[in-house]
């Protein structure tokens, strides 16, 4: 019953979305405001309808209706309620449903904004968002229906169908298979929704961009409207990526947080193009340049969002065959291709309207440096895309599969990341328009000179790795430049308005949140860079098999193997847990409990590390194996991860910075602004300098 209600509401939303797209296009072309208004109502209706569908699914999951195939495949009796709810995005069809739900929410949010202000753009925004929603819902309704039930034929064969096929009886399993153990982690509860929120909210700027192309409103209006949407999308995407890294570090048990896995990269690629977009729209806003390029970037981001959604759940990348066997694979690629071609065709049609208004003043101007930033981001994107796609190409043409793993990505993107850090240090001090070497040099020399102290000191303290020295110098340089910017601005306010320095800093950031939020983000990146260089270049590891009471040494750390216990848990796991004492420089600093959980139902082992964590480093212990009689011996793998916690701290600063930049401004009141304008105008006319 509930399944039928859920499915019916999805079908209804699908039809409403199609109607909305059609009506909006018709109304806009024929200038029929009442039809457009009807399309807007359709848009607003999609969210409540989708909510019925999604809540039906959640109800089925929470109450354990195992006759529904999806419920049986992702939940089990042993799972607590919160995990059952998160099982909504634990499998492919559920994630598509969840994606559509979020899409409808964001689309409705657009429908609720003041409609009159952008009357000509909004119908086309409806068209784009509703087509996207209809596509995803079409997948759910026709190919990946999460509401199908299990039926048994007389000969014992099991079928799946929504309604009872002739000659079958309903099959109600007593228990489900349960969620993939890897996903049973608090990080997994929030990580996928964050990524999906990021993905979905990038659809909105794309929709406005397309609306601008269709209507010929090729000024920067679409960018101004979607500025905050883009930042919000970027915030969620960043948050999703950081949480995903933390989850990998805590659960996957390989001593790291990022493995250049195709699925990770699939989520990372829209972030890369989105970051390039965030920077390059500023050039269009300030200088009226790069209108074509911004369009290209947002079209690319949209295509990568759809690509990423598809890849993160389908496992299609494992093989060409998996792709061709999947019903939705070709459809996804068809959709990506079609939207891409249509977008580019629109762009070409408006090519001449999008000519830039300004010219480049200098190679050192901020816009020139932002362009270099774009080149580097897109360069990293190309590396990622090529690395992900190449195994498929190889399999297609030569029949042999290859692995494109971390060494490739690290070597190819390393210099590009370093280049980005360098730009991050220079660009804030260069000006829009014209910047000369002399001006830039005057602003740069002090932070530059101070930052050089860092590699010098590190070198004397025994760091000889040139890449690490370069990395830490760059981090110090960017950090100093950014802090210097805060200091310069605050000092100027302090002198001019005789405000106290903290107040000056606060007001400075408040007045230009986007800029100073951006600088806070840069500081976050610097902190993350410290951590990444630390773990990438100075991680050490060792492994050994110990009898109880024996020791294993790694650098300044020593661990002793104290004991091992094994037991079954009520939720279907067998837990093997070791107790390990950790000594640092000869002093006992704590106990950690590395363990191996074995999930009976899915026959999957999970290695959960025991970690002793400080700001300086993590001592990360894995239980790799043990003898049948545990006292005889257990094998441990140890990692020493210097500075890794700066990755998480930097991530936090990064998110705070994004929040500062994206925080809504107070809505300006048109009447008041007009009087201000008049007053200022009269002041100017009166010859006063303002």
């Amino acid at each position, binding site marked *: 019953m509930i399944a039928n209600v859920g499915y019916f509401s999805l079908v209804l939303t699908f039809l409403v979305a199609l109607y909305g797209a059609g009506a909006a296009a018709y109304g806009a072309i024929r200038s029929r405001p009442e039809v457009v208004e009807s399309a807007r109502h359709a848009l607003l209706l999609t969210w409540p309808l989708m909510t019925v569908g999604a809540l039906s699914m959640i109800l089925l999951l929470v109450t354990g209706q195992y006759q529904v195939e999806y419920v049986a495949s992702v939940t089990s009796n042993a799972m607590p309620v919160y995990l059952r709810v998160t099982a909504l995005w634990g499998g492919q069809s559920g994630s598509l449903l969840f994606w559509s739900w979020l899409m409808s929410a964001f689309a409705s949010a657009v429908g609720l904004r003041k409609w009159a202000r952008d009357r000509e753009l909004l119908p086309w925004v409806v068209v784009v968002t509703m087509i996207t929603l209809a596509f995803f819902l079409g997948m759910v309704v026709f190919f990946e229906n999460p509401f199908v039930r299990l039926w048994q034929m007389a000969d014992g064969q099991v079928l799946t169908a929504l309604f009872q096929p002739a000659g079958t009886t309903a099959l109600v399993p007593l228990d489900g298979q349960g969620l993939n153990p890897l996903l049973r982690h608090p990080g997994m509860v929030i990580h996928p929704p964050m990524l999906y929120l990021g993905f979905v909210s990038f659809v909105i700027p794309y929709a406005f961009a397309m609306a601008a192309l269709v209507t010929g409103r090729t000024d920067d209006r679409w960018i101004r409207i979607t500025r905050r949407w883009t930042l919000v999308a970027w915030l969620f995407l960043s948050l999703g990526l950081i949480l995903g890294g933390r989850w990998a570090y805590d659960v996957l048990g390989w001593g790291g947080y990022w*493995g250049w896995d195709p699925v990770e990269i699939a989520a990372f690629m829209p972030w890369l193009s989105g970051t390039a977009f965030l920077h390059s729209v500023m050039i269009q806003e300030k200088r009226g340049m790069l209108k074509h390029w911004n369009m290209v970037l947002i079209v690319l981001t949209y295509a990568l969002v759809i690509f990423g959604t598809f890849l993160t759940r389908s496992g299609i990348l494992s093989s060409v065959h998996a792709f061709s066997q999947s019903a939705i694979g070709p459809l996804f690629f068809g959709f990506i291709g079609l939207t891409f071609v249509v977008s580019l065709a629109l762009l070409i049609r408006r090519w001449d309207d999008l000519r830039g208004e300004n010219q480049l003043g200098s190679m050192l101007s901020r816009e020139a440096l932002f362009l270099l930033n774009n080149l580097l981001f897109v360069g990293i994107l190309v590396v990622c895309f090529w690395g992900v796609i190449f195994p498929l190409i190889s399999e297609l043409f030569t029949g042999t*599969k290859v692995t494109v793993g971390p060494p490739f990505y690290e070597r190819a993107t390393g210099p590009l990341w370093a280049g980005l850090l360098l730009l991050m240090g220079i660009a804030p001090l260069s000006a829009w328009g014209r910047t000369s070497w002399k001006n830039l040099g005057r602003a740069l020399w002090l932070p530059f000179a101070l930052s050089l102290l860092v590699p010098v000191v590190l070198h004397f303290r025994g760091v000889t790795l040139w890449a690490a020295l370069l990395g830490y110098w760059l981090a110090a340089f960017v950090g100093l430049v950014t802090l210097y910017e805060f200091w310069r601005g605050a000092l100027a306010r302090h002198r001019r308005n005789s405000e106290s320095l903290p107040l000056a800093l606060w007001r400075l950031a408040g007045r230009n949140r986007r800029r100073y939020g951006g600088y806070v983000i840069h500081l976050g990146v610097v902190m993350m860079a410290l951590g990444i260089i630390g773990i990438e270049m100075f991680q050490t590891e*060792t*492994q*050994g098999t110990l009898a109880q009471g024996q020791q294993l040494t790694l650098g300044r750390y020593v661990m002793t193997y104290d004991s091992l216990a094994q037991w079954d848990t009520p939720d279907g796991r067998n837990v093997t847990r070791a107790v390990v004492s950790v000594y640092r420089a000869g002093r006992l600093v704590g106990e950690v409990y590395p363990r191996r959980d074995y999930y009976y139902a899915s026959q999957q082992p999970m290695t959960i590390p025991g970690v002793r964590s400080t700001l300086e480093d993590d001592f990360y212990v894995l239980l790799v194996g043990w003898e049948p009689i545990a006292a005889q011996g257990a094998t441990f793998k140890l990692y020493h991860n210097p500075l890794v916690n700066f990755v998480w701290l930097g991530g936090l600063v990064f998110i705070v910075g994004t929040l500062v930049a994206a925080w809504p401004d107070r809505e300006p009141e048109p009447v008041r602004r007009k009087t201000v304008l008049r007053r200022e105008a009269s002041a100017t006319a009166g010859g006063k300098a303002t």
Partner: protein
Amino acid sequence: MMAKRRALWLVLPAFLGALLVLPAAAQTSEPTDDQVNAIAKNLYCPVCENVPLDVCPTQACAQWRATIRQMLAEGRSQEEIQQYFVEQYGARVLAAPPAVGLNWLVYVIPPLAFAAGGFVLLRAFRNWRRAATTQAATTPVQPEDPYVARLEEELRRRD
């Protein structure tokens, strides 16, 4: 997950077979775990996608590590061991494809694309600068009415 596990069962006998095929030479010295992991770090088994061999918890990967240990004990070098796995299971066991045949493209395309992007950017820079200088030369700079400028700016900011 199901498919993966099934594949595991298919591949497992192959691993065990490989173990039998190996010449059982007299062990000279027992290699340490760290020596084994140093080699395993750069290998990937065909079943556990994207999990390096040194940290993969599956039984099959433990067998591979045992193979590495045995080969090390026989005094084989890292290259020889890697070569052995490549011969047995194909180039996909390596962390990055060897630069032969089509694989060559892996390493060539990104730098080429980057260079092309750099070239386009450089040309765009030049065009913009040329346009800027010719414009500056031909049109005398009109002192813009500050009132109009402010009005324009205010209008731009209104959103």
